[in-house]
């Protein structure tokens, strides 16, 4: 297979994530779109790890997995806070810091 194939898959997944972040109102769905973009980056790293025969890409992906787990935990906690205080999960109802 050409190198471009997994890279194009990654680009498609990243574009889907961008679309989701711009369109979604539901806080949890917004976080899912961010996950898609992170996963696109992981596919790129693994592909180049194989292409360059260098294990550093694998190690960086392991770190990204750990940081993503932390990010999702905090994100879900924030969405639950929002739901408890405002009874909504729509992120565009959050205008508290808008002048």
């Amino acid at each position, binding site marked *: 297979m050409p190198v471009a194939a997994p890279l194009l898959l990654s680009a498609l997944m990243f574009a889907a994530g961008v679309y989701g972040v711009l369109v979604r109102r539901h806080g*949890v769905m917004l976080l899912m779109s961010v996950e898609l973009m992170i996963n696109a980056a992981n596919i790129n790293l693994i592909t180049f790890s194989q292409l360059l025969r260098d294990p550093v890409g694998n190690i960086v992906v392991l770190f990204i997995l750990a940081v993503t787990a932390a990010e999702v*935990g905090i994100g879900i906690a924030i969405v639950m806070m929002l739901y408890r205080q405002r009874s909504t999960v729509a992120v565009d109802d959050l205008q508290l810091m808008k002048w």
Partner: protein
Amino acid sequence: MIVRQIAFWVLAGLSAISALFVVLTRNVVHAALGLAAALVAAAGLFILFGAEFVGLAQILIYVGAVVILFLFGIMLTSTAPGRPVVDNQQKGMAFLVAVGVFVVLAIGIVAAYGRRPLRLEVAFATSGLGNALFTRWILPFEAVSVLLLAALVGAIVLARKD
């Protein structure tokens, strides 16, 4: 070799379709399950590309922990009856931006790599990754463990009732 080619195209197609499904469906639970499918297919790709440990870690962490966390988040914040919150009104513009991002990335990728083949020859042994993690990468490794602890404490502080 032909088996690997077929496996690659099947996994890549599954991953792409699931990723598009995640951002196009109007049902929150379906989106979470689509995300699980996309991540499992990506883990299969990782294993195919010789990153066996990373692929299995992806299944454990993403599908085992992150997607379950999403499902819990959806269940605990079920919205009241009324209009469902899914998308906002900027669909057209967002579609243009997303297509623009994809086209720019695709032009760059094709210009840089064209038809250069990717040979699947190297399998990265888990022992080698472990050695690297605990020697050269020990400082980032410890930093990540502190980050996870901070995230744990932060999530508890945010989510507790007081």
